[in-house]
C-alpha cells in the first residue's frame, strides 16, 4: 500500500500507523507519550499530522492513525507547526522543568512564559506512559486520579502502593523524569515506599528489589536459584553454551 508523507512515496502495510511508516522512512515526527513497547495512547497530541483523504483534510495523531487507504500526509504544514508549537507552549507552561520539555521549547523557539501562571517545580506532563507501563506489567499499582485540571498520577489514596514491586518501570518510561527514584544503602524508594534491593550473585551489584524478583519468579515460573543481573545472566548463559559446544 502506497502513501505519500511530506511528498515522499512510502510503502505501508494495511493498518500500520503513520508514525511507524514515517520513522522507517527517516521522517521525523516529535512524540512524548509514545513508546515502542507499549500500546499507543494518543494523549500528548504532539505527533499530530494532516491527512488528506478523498479531497478532505483532517488533523490526526500519527501514532494511532491506521493506514487503510491511499492517503497523503503532511507532518509539518504551517497549520500543524502552529498547533504543535502551541501544544509545546502549553506543556511548558504546565511542567517547565523537565529536560525534554526545555529542549522542545528551544526547538520551537518558545520564549519564557509571561502570560500564564507557571509552576516552576512541576515536571509531569500527564502523558500516562507510567500508568500504561505498570498496567502492562500486570500490576496497575498507580493510576491517574481526578480529572480536568486536578488530574494527577498517584497510587491509591496517595499512600505507598501495596501492589507496587518497586521495579521503577514507570520512572524508566517517563519522558520528563517526573517520577522520583532514590537508591541508597541497599534500598530503593519510589512512590514513598522503600524496597529492599538484592545483590547480583555474579557481580555483587544491587540490581533488583526483592518483590520484583519474587514477582518475576511467580509470573514466569522461572526459578532462578540466585538473582543475576542482565550482564551476569548473559555471561553465565554464554558460558553454559560454550560448555555445550
Amino acid at each position: 500500500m502506497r502513501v505519500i508523507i511530506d511528498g515522499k512515496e512510502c510503502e505501508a502495510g494495511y493498518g500500520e500507523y503513520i508514525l511507524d511508516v514515517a520513522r522507517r522512512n527517516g521522517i521525523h515526527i516529535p512524540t512524548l507519550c509514545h513508546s515502542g513497547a507499549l500500546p499507543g495512547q494518543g494523549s500528548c497530541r504532539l505527533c499530530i499530522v494532516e491527512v488528506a483523504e478523498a479531497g478532505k483534510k483532517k488533523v490526526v495523531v500519527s501514532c494511532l492513525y491506521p493506514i487503510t487507504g491511499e492517503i497523503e500526509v503532511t507532518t509539518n504544514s504551517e497549520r500543524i507547526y502552529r498547533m504543535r508549537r502551541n501544544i509545546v507552549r502549553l506543556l511548558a507552561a504546565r511542567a517547565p522543568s523537565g529536560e525534554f520539555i526545555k529542549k522542545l521549547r528551544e526547538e520551537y523557539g518558545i520564549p519564557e512564559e509571561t502570560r500564564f501562571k507557571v509552576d516552576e517545580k512541576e515536571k509531569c506532563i500527564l502523558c500516562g506512559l507510567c500508568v500504561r507501563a505498570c498496567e502492562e506489567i500486570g500490576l496497575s499499582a498507580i493510576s491517574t486520579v481526578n480529572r480536568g485540571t486536578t488530574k494527577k498520577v498517584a497510587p491509591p489514596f496517595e499512600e505507598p502502593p501495596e501492589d507496587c514491586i518497586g521495579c521503577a518501570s514507570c520512572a524508566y518510561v517517563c519522558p520528563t523524569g517526573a517520577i522520583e527514584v532514590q537508591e541508597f544503602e541497599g534500598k530503593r524508594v519510589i512512590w514513598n515506599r522503600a524496597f529492599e534491593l538484592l545483590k547480583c550473585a555474579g557481580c555483587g551489584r544491587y540490581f533488583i528489589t526483592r518483590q520484583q524478583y519474587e514477582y518475576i519468579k511467580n509470573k514466569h515460573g522461572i526459578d532462578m536459584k540466585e538473582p543475576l543481573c542482565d550482564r551476569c545472566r548473559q555471561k553465565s548463559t554464554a558460558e553454559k553454551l560454550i560448555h555445550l559446544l
Partner: protein
Amino acid sequence: MTGTPNNSGKTVLVCCGTGCLANNSMEIYKELKKRVEALGPGFAVRPVLKTTGCNGLCEKGPIVNILPDDIFYCRVRVSDVDEIFEKTILRGEVIERLLYLDTSTGRRVRSHKESEFYRRQLKIALRNIGQIDPASIDDYIERGGYNALKKALFEMSPELVISEIERSGLRGRGGAGFPTGYKWRQCKRVNSFPKYVVCNGDEGDPGAFMDRSIMEGDPHSVIEGMIIGAYAVGSKKGFIYIRDEYSLAVRNVSKAIEDAYSRGFLGRGIMGSGFNFDVEVVRGGGAFVCGESTALMASIEGRVGEPRVKYIRSTEKGLWGQPTVLNNVETWANVPVIIDRGADWFAAIGTDRSKGTKVFSLVGKVKNTGLIEVPMGITLREIIFDIGGGITGNGKFKAVQTGGPSGGCIPEALLDLPVDFDSLDRAGSMMGSGGMIVMDETTCMVEVARYYLKFLSEESCGKCTPCREGIRRMLEILEDICAGRGQEGDLELLLELSETVKEASLCGLGKTAPNPVLTTIKYFESEYLAHIRDKRCPAGVCRKLTSYRINTDLCRGCGLCAKKCPAGAISGKPGAPHIIDVSSCIVCGTCREVCRFNAVEVIGGRSE
C-alpha cells in the same frame, strides 16, 4: 366554567417527576388516593389514580391532570387536594385559579394543550410522558407499546429494519447527529460476535433534562427501541448507562426491565420468536466526559472514564473490542415509532437533512420554561417567542446558547435560523443534546464564556494536552478579562488556542470546548473590547468592571433602591433623586433590579 358532571371513567394523573416530587407531589397523590379509597359503594366507576413521569413543566409543578376532560392543574398544593377532589373529580367542575396560564394571551386554559406553548409542539419521543404510569407496562402496551417490536420480529427482516431506519433519516440525538441507520448497518456488516447495543443516558449538560424525563417517564420506549436495534444488528446483550444522580431514572428503568422480562419482551425467545436479548442497567459516576461514547464504554468495562481515538469506529471495535451500537436515550425512544408508523411518516417531519423532532430543555430568561419537542427546522424565534412566550420581565433578547456547555451563543441577528443539525453547526454552535438557554441584556457574554470554560476545565478528563491545558489557559485569560486584567493580544491568543484545542483534542469534549469563546468573540467582540480596553462591563455583571449611578433625571425618589440595598450605600430624601455612594457599594445589582424607572445606570469600574 363548569364541566359535565360526570365522574365515571375519570383518570387522575399526578406528575411524579423529580421536579414535582421535590414540590411534594407524592403527598398530593397519597391524599387523593385516600379520598378515592374512602368513596362509598355508590360509585360504580371509581376514578383511577396514576403517577406519571416528568411533564417537562417543572417550573409549573406539581401538576395534576384529570382525564378524559383533560383538565390541567399547575402548582397544586396539598391544601388544594380537598377542593380538587370535591369539585373536579366528583362534580366535574373546573377550578379556575389552578389552570395553566397561557402567557401569550394572559388567559387561563382548561387544558395546557390549548396553550401556545403546547400547540406548537409535536410529541414523538415524549409521546407517552405525562400520560402513562412509567411503572406500569400495561399503560405502555395500551398506548401501542411493543407493537413495533412485534412488527419487527415477525414481519421484518433485520435488513428491512435497518433500511427503514435509514429511510426515516433519523440522526443521533446525543449531539453529533450521526445517521442512526448507517451506524446500525456498519455494525451489522462486521462479522464478529458478540455485538452490543448501548443506551447513553449520561446526560451531563447543566440545565438539560430531556433524557432524564424519557427514562423516568417512559422507560419502555427506550427498551423497546433497543430490542429492535439489537435484532437489527444481531446483538444479544445491551447496556443502559445512567448517571447515578438520576436515581428515579435508574429505578424506573430497572423496574421496566424487570416487567419486560416477565412479559417475555426480554430474555430468551422474545415474544415466541427465536430472538434472545438481555439488557442491564449500568450506573455511571457522573463525569460529564462519560457522555462521550468511548469514555462511556471504558466506564462500562470498569476502566477510568477516558475516551480513546475513534479512527476505528465503535461499530467495529467498541465495548470490550466488539462491534457496538451506541445511541442516545432520545434516539432509542424514536425507534419504535418509526417502525410502527413507517419511515415515510417520520421523514415527512422536519427538514431535508434533519428529520423528525428534537426535544429541547428551554430555560433561562423566557416566560415559559420546560421541555419542548418541536419539529426540526422550526426557527429559534418561534421557539423563544412563540413557545417560550418571549423574554421575562419584558427584557430584551440578547443571545441563546444551544447545545450544552460546549455549544455556542447565537445572537439576535440569527434568530430566524432554522433549528437543525447543519444550520446550528454553521452558526458556530451545535444541536448538542438539546439544551437551550435564553439570555437577556443583563447577561455579560464574556462572563458566559468564562462560566462554560470553567465547567469544561473541571469536566475535561485530562487525558490529552490541548483539552486539559488549553481550556485551562483559555479560562485563565477569561478570568483575567472579567477581573479587569485583560491585556492587548488576549483575543488573538484566545483565538489561536481555540484552533489548537478544537483541532488537536482527542474527543468531542475538547473539539467543541472553544465554541462558547469563539461564538461570543464572533458575535459580541465589542463586549470583550469594552472589558479589555475600557475596563467596563457593559452588561453590569463583572463586578470589578462595574459601578452604578442613579440618573437624576429619571429617579423619582421612591426610595425603593435605598430600602433594598444590602450595603446601605444609597441615600436621598423622599421625592428627590437618590445617590449611590460608590465606595460602599458592593455591586450586587439589587438597585438596578428593583428600580421601576430604569434610573440605575451601569458605568465602568471604579478607578482605584
